[in-house]
C-alpha cells in the first residue's frame, strides 16, 4: 500500500469515524446534562426567542462598533484567515472535484494563481495570529496547548496545499498524500480541541440569543 492509497483509504475512514464519533460524544455530553426549566416570565414569546437565537448567530460575527478600536485588529486578522481558508476550500479546482464526487454538485473554480495567492495570504495571517498570541499579554495568559496544537493542525493543510500547487519539493503523489494526511490530522483533532468551534459557535451564539431574548437583554 502506498502512502497515497493509505491516506485515501484507511486513514480517511479512520479520520472520518473519529471526527463524527468525537463530535457526537462532545455534543451529547453537553446536551444530556440535567436541564433546569426556566420559569421566569419571559418578555418575548417562544418564536421571538428562537428568532433572536438565529439573529445572534449572525450578529455576533462582528463586535459592536464601540468595541472596534480595541479589538478591530484581531478581528480583521481572524477574518482574513477564515475567508482565505473558505476561498481556497470552495474555489480550488481539486476541492471542487472532491465535492462533486461526494455530493454530486460542482461550480466554476478559481484560477490556480488566485488560489495560490489566497493560500499565501491565509498562511501569512495564520503566522501573524501566532505572533499575536505569543506577544499579546492577554492571549499569552489564556493560551493552552490546545491553541498551539490547533494552530499547527490548521497550518499543515494550508502549507502542504501550497507545496502541492508548486510540486517542487517532492513528487505530486507524495505531496498529495501529505496534504490529505494533514487534513485527516485536522479531522481527528477537531472534536477534542478549540477547532470544535466550527459547530459550537452556532450552538453557543444561538443559546445566548434565545436566553437573552427571554429577558429582553442585549444580545
Amino acid at each position, binding site marked *: 500500500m502506498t502512502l497515497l492509497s493509505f491516506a485515501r483509504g484507511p486513514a480517511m475512514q479512520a479520520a472520518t469515524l473519529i471526527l463524527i464519533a468525537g463530535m457526537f460524544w462532545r455534543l451529547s455530553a453537553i446536551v444530556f446534562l440535567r436541564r433546569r426549566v*426556566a420559569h421566569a416570565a419571559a418578555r418575548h414569546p417562544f418564536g421571538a426567542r428562537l428568532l433572536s437565537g438565529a439573529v445572534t448567530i449572525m450578529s455576533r460575527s462582528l463586535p459592536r462598533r464601540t468595541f472596534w478600536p480595541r479589538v478591530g485588529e484581531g478581528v480583521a486578522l481572524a477574518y482574513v484567515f477564515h475567508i482565505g481558508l473558505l476561498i481556497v476550500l470552495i474555489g480550488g479546482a481539486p476541492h471542487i472535484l472532491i465535492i462533486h464526487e461526494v455530493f454530486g454538485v460542482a461550480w466554476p473554480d478559481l484560477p490556480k494563481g488566485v488560489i495560490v495567492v489566497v493560500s499565501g495570504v491565509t498562511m501569512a495571517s495564520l503566522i501573524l495570529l501566532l505572533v499575536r498570541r505569543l506577544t499579546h499579554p492577554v492571549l499569552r495568559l489564556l493560551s493552552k496547548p490546545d491553541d498551539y496544537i490547533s494552530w499547527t493542525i490548521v497550518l499543515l493543510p494550508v502549507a502542504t496545499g501550497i507545496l502541492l500547487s508548486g510540486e517542487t519539493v517532492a513528487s505530486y503523489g507524495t505531496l498529495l498524500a501529505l496534504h490529505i494526511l494533514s487534513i485527516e490530522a485536522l479531522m481527528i483533532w477537531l472534536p477534542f480541541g478549540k477547532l470544535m468551534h466550527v459547530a459550537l459557535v452556532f450552538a453557543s451564539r444561538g443559546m445566548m440569543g434565545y436566553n437573552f431574548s427571554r429577558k429582553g437583554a442585549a444580545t
Partner: protein
Amino acid sequence: MNDIAPPLLKAVAPPPDIGKALRGFVADIGPTVALSLESCIHCGQCAEACQFYVQTSDPRYTPIHKIELFKQTYNREMGPFSFGYKLLGMAPALTVETLTQWQDLVYDSCNMCGRCSLICPMGIDIADLVEQTRHGMYDAGLAPADFLGAIAEKEHATGSPFGLTSQTFRDLLYDIGTKHGVTMHVDEQKAEIVPTVSSIDVKTYPGSMAAIAKILNHIGLPWTFRTDGFDADNVSLTAGDRAGQAAITQGIVNAARACGAKTLVMPECGHSFTEMRWEAANTFGKDLPFRVLQITELVAEAITSGTLRVNKIKQTATYHDACQLSRRGGATAAPRVIFSALGVDLHELEDAGDANWCCGGGGGVALIKRAQPLRNAAFAIKQKQIEQSGAAIVYTSCSGCRQTLEHGGKAAGWSTTVGSLLELVADNLAP
C-alpha cells in the same frame, strides 16, 4: 522586635474547603453552562470590554480567566474528555493556593456587569459563569470577609444585610412618612402592589422610600409595604451564597403572596431585580404568583397608561444605566420614557444603554474594602463620560450605582451631582 505575631484573624481563619468548592462548582452545571465552558476560543476580546483590564492593562483581569478554576474543575470532573484531562494532567485539581489566588479575580475585579458577555464572539455569558464560580468560592469560605462576606452572612441570618428588623422598618417608614408628609401603607391585609426596598436606601437614601409612597399614592391602586418581607438587596447573590439568596427571596415572595399582590416592585437596585425577576422563579422551580417590575418599569408603564402624570421640568441631565437593569435586564427603555415625559433634556453618555460601562461597584465590589483602587479606576471611565455629556447632574435607577458614583466622585474631587430618577419623578408629580 521582629517577631510580631500575625493578626489573630489570620491565625484562626479556617483554610478554604476544597471539597466544598468542588461541589459548589459542579452543582449547577447544566447544558447552558457546559456549552459556555466548552466554547471559548481564547481570543481575548472579553478583556477589551472589561473596565478593570482596560484601566489597568493587567491580563489577570481578563474576564474568561477569572473563571479558569471553574472551567478546570468542569474539564476534570464532568467534561466529555475528563478522563483525558486527568490522564494528561491538563486540568489540575483545586488547591488551597489556587483558590486563594483567584479570590480577587472572582470578587474584587468583577462587577458581573456582562459587558464581556456582550462582546464575546462565541456568545458566552461570562458574567453568568462568574456568578456560578462564586457559588463554589463562597461554599469554600472564600467570599471576601470585609464586608461582602460578613454582610451576606448577616443577611442570611436575619433577612436584612444590616440586620434590620420588622419593627425597626415599620418605625422608620412612619418616621419617613411624617417627615415627608406622605401617607405610608404598611402591612395592609390586601394590596395589588407591594414595593420592596434596598438596604442602601434604608441606610443612606431614606427619601427614596418617601418617593415610592408618593408615586404609588398617585397611581391610586391599593399598595402596601410589608415588614415581613421588604429588604430585596440580596447581597447573598453577589457573594455566592445560594441558600441565603433563596431564603431572602422566599421571605419577600411569601409576604407579597400573603396580601394577594399582583405586582411586586423592585427598588432602585440592579442585582435585586436580577434575582427576583430572572432567577427567583427558576430557583423555586415554579412561576411566581405575581409579576415583578423594577420601579422604573412601573413608573414608565403608569406614565404610558396615563395613571401617572408628571410636570415638565427644565433641566439638562444625563443618565447612568445600571447594568442589571439595562444590558442584563431588558429595562433599557423605561428610564427614557420617564425622562421624555418629564421633558428633561437628556444628554446620553457615550455607550449609553446596552453597552454602558459599569459604575465599578456592581456585583458586590462596592462591599469589598480592598477593591477601592479598582473601583476608582473603573469610575474614572464614567467620570470622563459624564463630564463629556455636559450635564451637571447624572441620574441613575440603582442605589448601589448612586452610592458608588458619589464615593468615586468624592475621591476624585468631583462636583457633578448624582440623583435618583425615582426621587426626580416623586418631586415632579402633577397635581
